[in-house]
């Protein structure tokens, strides 16, 4: 009996390491007992993530396809994975003290985050529709659980349940789409799909329907309109560190996957799928700008904000070329730090031992906690896309790509909606700096060294990105080049 040769596992080393480490930490937690283990496992998980970052970073940008063509690493996957890992690590750091205070500190939480992150890395490296689905499900199943992690809270359970039901629906649609594609194109591998579609003049109707369903599944994950409905409820209901996690790592992973699928196997159908992306992007930007205005809860506001931001990132995808993908990646990198920083502030909104989430609670923050107000001000201006904050450059690169590809209408809509959205971002700054301090006085001090550190790193990066943008821009450029060989 011939023995199948062992596939090249080195390319998948970070994923394997993460999966194994998650198991090990799970065992460690079980043996140590709940109360003591949570903190230890959390910090160890952070260490594991950092090690994974170095593992990913150690990979060279050369294209490797392994595991029977299911798995790919290239410059693109390295860039996206590092972003995801940073996002997960930051979210975990932010969660530790919060979970302790809210009495939901359990060692399963970091383990679930690790497993979810493993799924995300697999998504990014997927080179086959089935690998894609596996990664996506691994990620999602862990996310469903962490969303309802605060078991005693009705809101948290509701959030988890809603996410699960709708996620299942989206997964179903996606699977349906994958089966359609397989039926009409005869393959699930990206490389064979690309080769097959490259030779065709017009795609068959079944294939088109399949692609639309696939797009829907991924649009659900990045919470693009009209598949965004879960986002505000889940953001509001889930524990805040979970919301912070939701708003960065899965978004980045799903977006990276989205880009790889669309410009990879289906690149030749650019002019067909661009219509859908265009519509989703416009709808997301408009809804993100409008619906956020009316929100009183800052987590809900951030939900709509992230819907809008995914719309902007989709502009780069709609461009469908190397410049556009570069724009998406730069956008995701900057978005990561803006959001992590903002959530670090939201996590510190604690008054008299209880969390507060109202926007009005931020009133007069500049007088009670000037440093935090300054940091949040920087993030808000950046989210609004006001120069010289990094958020401006993020938008600049995607708009530039859109103009370059002749998508002028899309760029104009983007600019208009970002003006509208500036209203609610700047309103927070106004509340902090010009209004009387809110009733109840200052927030509780002692937000934690690690939260302060995250806040500081994020605000420095956002504030001074414009001085030295080269690493991010060059990295994104190299990564996008990997998707467009030749």
């Amino acid at each position: 009996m011939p023995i199948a040769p062992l596939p090249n596992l080195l390319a998948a080393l970070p994923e394997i390491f993460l999966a194994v480490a998650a198991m090990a930490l799970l065992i460690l937690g079980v043996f140590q007992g709940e109360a003591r283990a949570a903190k230890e496992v959390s910090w160890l998980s952070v260490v594991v993530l950092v090690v994974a970052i170095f593992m990913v970073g150690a990979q060279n940008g050369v294209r490797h396809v392994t595991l029977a063509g299911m798995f790919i690493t290239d410059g693109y996957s390295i860039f996206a994975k590092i972003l995801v890992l940073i996002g997960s690590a930051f979210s975990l750091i932010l969660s530790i003290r919060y979970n302790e205070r809210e009495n939901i500190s359990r060692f399963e939480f970091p383990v679930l985050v690790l497993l979810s992150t493993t799924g995300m890395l697999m998504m990014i490296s997927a080179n086959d529709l089935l690998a894609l689905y596996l990664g996506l499900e691994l990620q999602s199943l862990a996310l469903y659980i962490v969303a309802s992690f605060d078991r005693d809270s009705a809101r948290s359970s509701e959030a988890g349940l809603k996410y699960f039901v709708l996620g299942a629906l989206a997964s179903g649609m996606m699977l349906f789409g994958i089966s359609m594609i397989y039926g009409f194109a005869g393959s699930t591998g990206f490389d064979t799909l690309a080769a097959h579609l490259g030779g065709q003049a017009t795609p068959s109707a079944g294939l088109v329907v399949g692609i639309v369903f696939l797009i829907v599944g991924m649009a659900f994950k990045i919470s693009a309109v009209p598949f965004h409905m879960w986002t505000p409820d889940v953001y509001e209901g889930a524990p805040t560190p979970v919301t912070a996690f939701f708003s960065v790592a899965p978004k980045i992973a799903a977006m990276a996957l989205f880009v790889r699928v669309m410009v990879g196997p289906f690149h030749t159908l650019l002019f067909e799928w661009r219509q859908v992306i265009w519509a989703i992007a416009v709808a997301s930007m408009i809804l993100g700008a409008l619906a956020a205005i009316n929100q009183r809860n800052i987590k809900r506001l951030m939900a709509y904000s992230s819907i809008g931001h995914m719309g902007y990132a989709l502009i780069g995808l709609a461009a469908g070329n190397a410049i556009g993908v570069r724009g998406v990646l730069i956008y995701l990198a900057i978005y990561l730090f803006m959001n992590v920083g903002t959530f670090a502030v939201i996590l510190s909104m604690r008054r008299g031992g209880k969390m507060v989430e109202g926007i009005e609670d931020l009133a007069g923050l500049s007088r009670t906690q000037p440093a935090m107000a300054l940091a949040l001000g920087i993030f808000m201006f950046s989210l609004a896309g006001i120069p010289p904050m990094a958020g401006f450059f993020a938008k600049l690169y995607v708009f530039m790509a859109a103009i370059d590809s002749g998508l002028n209408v899309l760029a104009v809509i983007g600019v208009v909606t970002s003006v509208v959205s500036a209203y609610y971002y700047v309103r927070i700054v106004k509340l902090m700096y010009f209004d009387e301090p809110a009733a109840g006085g200052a927030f509780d001090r002692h937000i934690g060294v690690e939260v302060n550190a995250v806040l500081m790193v994020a605000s420095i990066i956002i504030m001074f990105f414009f001085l030295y943008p080269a690493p991010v821009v060059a990295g994104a450029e190299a990564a996008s080049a990997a998707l467009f060989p030749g």
Partner: protein
Amino acid sequence: MAILAVFLPLLGAVVAGFFGRVIGDRGAQVVTCSCLGVAAICGLLVFNDIAVWHHTAIVPVFTWIDAGQLKIAWALKLDALSAVMLAMVTVVSFVIHVYSIGYMAGDPSIPRFMSYLSLFTFFMLMLVTSSNFVQLFFGWEGVGLCSYLLVGFWYDRPRANAAAIKAFVVNRIGDFGFSVGIFAVYYLFGTLDFGPVFGGAAGMAGKTMVFLGMHVDALTVTCILLFIGAMGKSAQIGLHVWLPDAMEGPTPVSALIHAATMVTAGVFMVARLSPMFEYAPIALNTVTVVGGTTALFAATVGIAQNDIKRVIAYSTCSQLGYMFFAAGVSAYQASIFHLMTHAFFKALLFLSAGSVIHAMSGEQDMRKMGGLGRLIPITYVVMWIGSLALAGIPPFAGYFSKDMILEAAYASGSEVGEYAFVLGCFAAFLTALYSWRLLFLTFHGEPRADHETLHHVHESPKVMLIPLYVLSAGALVMGALGYHWLVGAGAKEFWGNAIVVLPQHAGIAGAERVPVWVSTLPLVAGLIGIAVAWYAYIRRPSVPGETARAFEPIYLFLLNKWYFDEIYNFIFVRPAFWVARLLWRRGDGTVIDGFGPDGVSEVTGDLSVRASRLQSGYVFQYAFAMVIGVAIFVSWFLFWRST
């Protein structure tokens, strides 16, 4: 060296401006004055370097704009022209800085004042050393900005504010022409660097371009547009209205504006661009006519003014006219020569006037002075020196330069040259008349001030007098000293390539060959002017009143400055206010706010409420939305594909 000379004033301005509170009044004065002092020494050294050794150079500072076709670098162009200006501006400005210490004593915001003065000087230096049009424009606008700040320095006085705004707005009109001119240069030459533009000017002569729908001579239009900018900055007739009002600023500011900086920018620009103007004869003729007209016009107004500073202000206007028509007849060297001598004696006149005002506790009306000669003898003497220089009496500085200009105008042989010559000679007579009217009214006769003021009359402190001595020395010897180099036998060697004069234009060379009566006429006119003034204000003091009554319309016409302000007010200012009000109330308030910000924000708010209502909280509705979304996309996709 040149970099030091240019940027030290900026350093002084920054230190005094931003750290004024830290270093205090005295500190600000010391910092700005020492910066300017060192700058002046550097300026003189640079001048020496260029005048004696001819080390012309372009000193690069750094690249400024590098966008596609357009490359602009900060660079200091050092040649004879900029060296003369550099030395003159730094020296005169330094003297004025020192004077300000005494004059502004007791003012609450001395650091701000010193900072503005230094900044003003910096922009002027930037302007004169510019090596391209953009840098020139930068200095140009900076000077305009500083004049606004300084004229309105006493911002709690409504008249000062109005004057500052007027100066700014009138300058803007000129600057508009200037900037359009720069666009035209870029359009024609494809570059804004002086070197290539000057090199290509000869080839551009006679070419046409489309301007406002007409085919016109390209260089002529460009030069005239640029000259409009010069008219604004140098207060030529039509755009002169800001200059007399600028007297609302503190006197050192007036001296700085009128002598070393700002108003000379226009003259300098025409001289700097001589390689272009030389190929645009119509533009040159325009310059000559405007200059000649201004020289006479301002002089006529000068004899009817009663404010001591306004008389001198109109005198500046008139002298600038001389400089322009000198440039217009291709005697750029004479123009710059006069600019230089004028800088000294006009600064002297202003600062002595400041000394008079200082002595009179702020009184500026000459009708309330008189008999001050005995009380403030030093000021009296230096004022005489200044006036003698202004009137062109040998051996004072003005004699050499003014004579040169008038001779060159006569020698040019063209009609416009003769026009300028005749007007210039008549203006020389008027210049002497109003200068001695000022002297006699202020220093001679019986005191007309009230007892209280007279009691306080005192000579100014040393810190104000020493600058006057320095400037007096300049007014005495500058003409004789500079004659050889700037317009005499050594001129050709001195100027080198800095100024271009075509062989067919006589320029200063023609001034050597004029008849004797031409070179003596201005002097005679000046002497007659002095004599008339003596007769009217010393011998028979009733004459002026009788004359004014006999020719009342003319007197009123002159007193009201040819009604320029009133006409402008009627034609431009009031309709502008009216249109602005209409646009504000109707246009902005109703239309733009209604459909714009207010309307949009209302609609946005409304949409926002609707958008958040979509979020019902029911999972089945969410799922429904997703399914609908899929259905729409699939249908759209299929439909779009089939069409």
